[in-house]
């Protein structure tokens, strides 16, 4: 049950690629997105785990920890190509006692596989 406080929301990441030249040609990027592992934290009698991540990256509905997801970023026109995407998740909480403030690290790894 939600209580008063900050409104829940997804994390937002911005991916920026510098092509390295000013060529006037459109290009696309094939990228791989990886959440390295299950995000988890134990604080006192509370354990929070995020085992499932959702994203608004086109063509990807779910990011499974440890599994790479590939997408193509299209429509890059300039030297700098930038896209923002959001990552949400399902926080599973188990509690044996008390409460806790959870701050769970959420690393995202993006790799450019090819410039198309």
């Amino acid at each position, binding site marked *: 049950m939600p209580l008063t406080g900050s409104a829940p929301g997804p994390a937002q990441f911005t991916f920026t690629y510098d092509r*390295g030249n000013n060529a006037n040609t459109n290009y696309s990027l094939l990228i791989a997105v990886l959440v390295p592992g299950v995000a988890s934290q134990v604080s006192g009698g509370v354990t929070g785990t995020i085992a499932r991540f959702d994203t608004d990256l086109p063509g990807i509905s779910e990011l499974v920890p440890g599994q790479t997801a590939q997408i193509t970023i299209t429509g890059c026109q300039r030297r700098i190509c930038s896209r923002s995407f959001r990552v949400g998740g399902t*926080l599973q909480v188990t509690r044996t006692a008390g*409460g806790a403030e959870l701050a769970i690290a959420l690393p995202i790894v993006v*790799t450019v596989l090819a410039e198309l």
Partner: protein
Amino acid sequence: MILPRLLLAASTAALAAPAMAASGQSATAQGQAEAVVVEPIVAVALNDLDFGSLTASATASGSVTVDPGGGASYAGGAAPACPGGSCAGIAPARFAVRGEASRSYRVNAPAAITATGTLIGSGATAPDLAIDALLVHLDSHTGGDTTSGKLDTKGQDQITIGGRLNVPAGTSAAHYHATLTILVTYS
């Protein structure tokens, strides 16, 4: 020649510096998922709301009112079964509340409930009696009766509830009981 490079940054609060990959075409950004998990709030019944034993007039309706503080008063044709009410066992309902220390909470309690009874002797169903004017008092709120309170530094508080039992004229001897359900929620 300028090599392509990739930057990934997280724009949530409390972030580590984003990493930049100059030649490996890979970048990592460290975001953070935040949540506050609050200890659940619970209320445990300690005492029932007890109007004690009373007598009812054959000709005049009456009532007995139990104050959240524990006192009782009689009106109309209702009177304590024992002189001064010493044998009546009168008490307000009492609940212990436990939860997250120093958090505010709210009590939802009905304004009125109905008592059902069983006639003494025959065991038949007695006419229902109305209990109204239910008043909630919280130990954490000394200013009077209220439904909003605050748990102390140990995460505790106590609720007492009084009310008024209405006794129509000619009410037969019976045992009555009612269910008083409250709901406590963080506010």
